[in-house]
């Protein structure tokens, strides 16, 4: 029975070892959720010293609130550093919590950083470190990124979260491109296409819209509008709103759009409506020895608003009007697209990805022009064909009109 005893001892020993293992597990990457500081946004500005960035980090600070459960406050720091890791190191001296990158929503580059270039280096951290995910959004900021992140918004949202929800709501208006980190890297990988980033800016009261701001002369709202075209990681130029809209059409990125023909001069009757669906196709055509890329945009629109209608229309007249509306909308879309193409030619940058379209449709031809593509962009011929279908014209077949002659000069 001697062996039994030694077995027993060994068993107890093993149990003790296991118990020790259990209770001495130390950190091993374990962090309690309340010890984390969830990072929501990062902003990059140019630092004072050359080669450094002013890195602004926006953290959420959950607060216990007995009545509503929880409340989020922001905690934003700006630190000058030459790498993201360095910034986090400096930051750790201040915060008592571990920064948690998994919740990062947006990375903001200020105009100056974008113009100075070199921010792809900053992105490397975000694509390499395991906690980040590639679905975060990239935006350019008009002005300083720090200012945007430090805004006190009237909605009470943290600026980073506000930008995120703005971008995610972007499908409904389709007037700025949605760029996630993954998408940006993929575009960089194509080599021929120039990346494009949406632009975020603060809106003060009195610029485009008026509201009652909490503090005088301080912006309380944020908006995303238009985009910036990059040459590599250098900002080449900002696009105007119209050019961005054109880009959206040409890139088949329009999901829903609000659209109107108010700016068309020749017609007296103006339409407003919304795009229900849209699809852009690409074709490489040969036009007497020269290749040409043709965009075929097919879209269906519902008319929501008719302006300047002078009289009640009869049935056939109504059909005519709808046909006219189709033509008008097509014109607006064409105009937007053309402005975009014009910009592309001016810049000599293929942000529309025409090169990739050619490669997809006719890779043999692409190989012959690939190397001098930069020069080709300026005069590569592009044509646009827009086909608009009016789906319906709303609940009414007539408009509220004045009696003939009355109220009109």
């Amino acid at each position, binding site marked *: 029975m001697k062996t039994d005893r030694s077995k027993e001892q060994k068993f107890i020993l093993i149990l003790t070892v296991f118990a020790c293992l259990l209770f001495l597990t130390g950190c091993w990457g374990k962090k309690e959720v309340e010890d984390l500081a969830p990072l929501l946004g990062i902003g990059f500005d140019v630092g004072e010293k050359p080669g450094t960035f002013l890195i602004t980090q926006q953290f959420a600070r959950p607060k216990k609130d007995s009545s509503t459960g929880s409340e989020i406050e922001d905690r934003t720091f700006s630190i000058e550093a030459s790498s993201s890791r360095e910034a986090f190191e400096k930051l750790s001296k201040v915060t008592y919590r571990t920064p948690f990158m998994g919740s990062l929503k947006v990375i903001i580059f200020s105009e100056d950083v974008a113009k100075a270039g070199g921010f792809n280096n900053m992105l490397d951290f975000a694509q390499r470190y395991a906690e980040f995910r590639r679905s975060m959004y990239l935006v350019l900021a008009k002005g300083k990124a720090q200012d945007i992140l430090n805004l006190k918004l009237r909605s009470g949202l943290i600026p980073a979260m506000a930008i995120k929800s703005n971008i995610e709501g972007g499908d409904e208006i389709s007037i700025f491109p949605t760029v996630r980190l*993954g998408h940006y890297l*993929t575009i960089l990988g194509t080599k021929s296409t120039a990346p494009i980033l949406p632009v975020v800016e603060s809106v003060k009261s009195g610029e485009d819209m008026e509201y009652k701001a909490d503090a005088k002369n301080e912006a309380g709202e944020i908006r995303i509008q238009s985009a910036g075209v990059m040459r590599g990681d250098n900002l080449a130029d900002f696009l105007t709103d119209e050019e961005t809209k054109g880009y959206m059409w040409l890139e*088949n990125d329009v999901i829903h759009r609000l659209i109107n023909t108010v700016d068309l001069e020749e017609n007296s009757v103006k339409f407003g409506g919304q795009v229900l669906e849209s699809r852009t196709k690409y074709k490489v055509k040969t036009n007497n020895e020269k290749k040409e890329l043709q965009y075929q945009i097919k879209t269906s629109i519902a008319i929501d608003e008719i302006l300047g209608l002078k009289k009640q229309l009869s049935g056939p007249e109504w059909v005519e009007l709808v046909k006219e509306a189709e033509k008008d909308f097509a014109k607006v879309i064409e105009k937007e697209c053309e402005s975009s193409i014009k910009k592309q030619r001016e810049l000599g940058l293929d942000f529309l990805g025409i090169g990739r379209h050619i490669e*997809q449709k006719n890779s043999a031809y692409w190989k012959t022009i690939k190397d001098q593509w930069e020069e080709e962009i300026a005069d590569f011929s592009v044509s646009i064909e827009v086909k608009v279908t009016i789906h319906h014209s709303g609940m009414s077949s007539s408009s509220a009109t004045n009696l003939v002659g009355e109220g009109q000069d």
Partner: protein
Amino acid sequence: MERISSHQFMVLGAAVLMGTTFLPIASMVTGVASRDGWMSVLPGFAVGIPYSLMVISLLEQYPQKNLLQISEILLGKWICKIIGIVYILITGYFGGLLLGQVGDIYQSSIMPLTPIGMFYLGGILLVFCLIRSGIEVFARFSEIIFPLIVIALVLNMGLSMPRIEQGEFLPILSEGIKPIIWGGLKVAPFAMEYILFIAGILTFLPTGKRELAQLKRGVWQAVFWVGFLNTLVVLIQILIFGPGETVSLVYGLLVLGKMVEISRTFAGVESLFLGAWFGALVIKVSAFFFTVNWGLETVFNLKGLKWNLGVGVVFMGIAFKFKRGPVLVMEIGFVDNYLILPFASVWILTLWGISRWKKVAGIS
């Protein structure tokens, strides 16, 4: 004597063949064949079919014997011993490297601060349990895990669909057919790993006439399914990342897992997927553990708990030696291309050739 059914052979084979090929495969084939990489997956795996059929035809002639025993009959004792030693060394080394991959995958993707040894330990413990429970339990384990892996793969791919970039699919075959062949060659070693496993499992297979036909069908099915799934994996990565990024991501599928968003709320379910990938790795490491055991048993007649523990320690040792991620990936590629591929292809072709020749000679 333990036995596994022909259906279990099919699933087990598929699970071993699949292993964790879906993690590095996209980067490998895209590196060679660029945008057309996905087309080279299926042909690459198909290389395994003729070899498996050869092995099964050998089984038909020498039932209940594994390939090493067959080598002894056909090539003599000493050559067999040499082959056996090479077989043990290669499979043992490779098994250890795969165990290292468990740590690498977990540490680099979700748990960077946990000591890597814990991952090895967790992996080897499960492998050890499987080894001690025998081939039947192992076959059943794969019967449960393989569907899980398939479901996880399909979910992972399906959920990342919204991230597909426009127009990354075309053009097809812009570089001609040659890169696809080279890509296929990159995939072929995966099939050869499978062959090495089959070489050992032969003793447990049924040898009735009907079962043999089922085994052959099992090989076809396994290769087809695994090839098909891996094709999809490569394709979806190319569609989402574009060829350039696909090459540069070490484990693209893990990144894909990170990008999954379920109705814009649940993100980052990769840690759940990793559970399934871990199961796949356990199966693969166990498979090589088994081959080492069979090799030891056949060549040196060594078996039992003591030797199992020994092999386990060797596996851990190899894993600890390759703690550095990039080195590990390089080493796995090296063993695949320059050890497993030539060894398996030469060995089996020779055996089959000799047995054919003997048969013909015997008749005439």
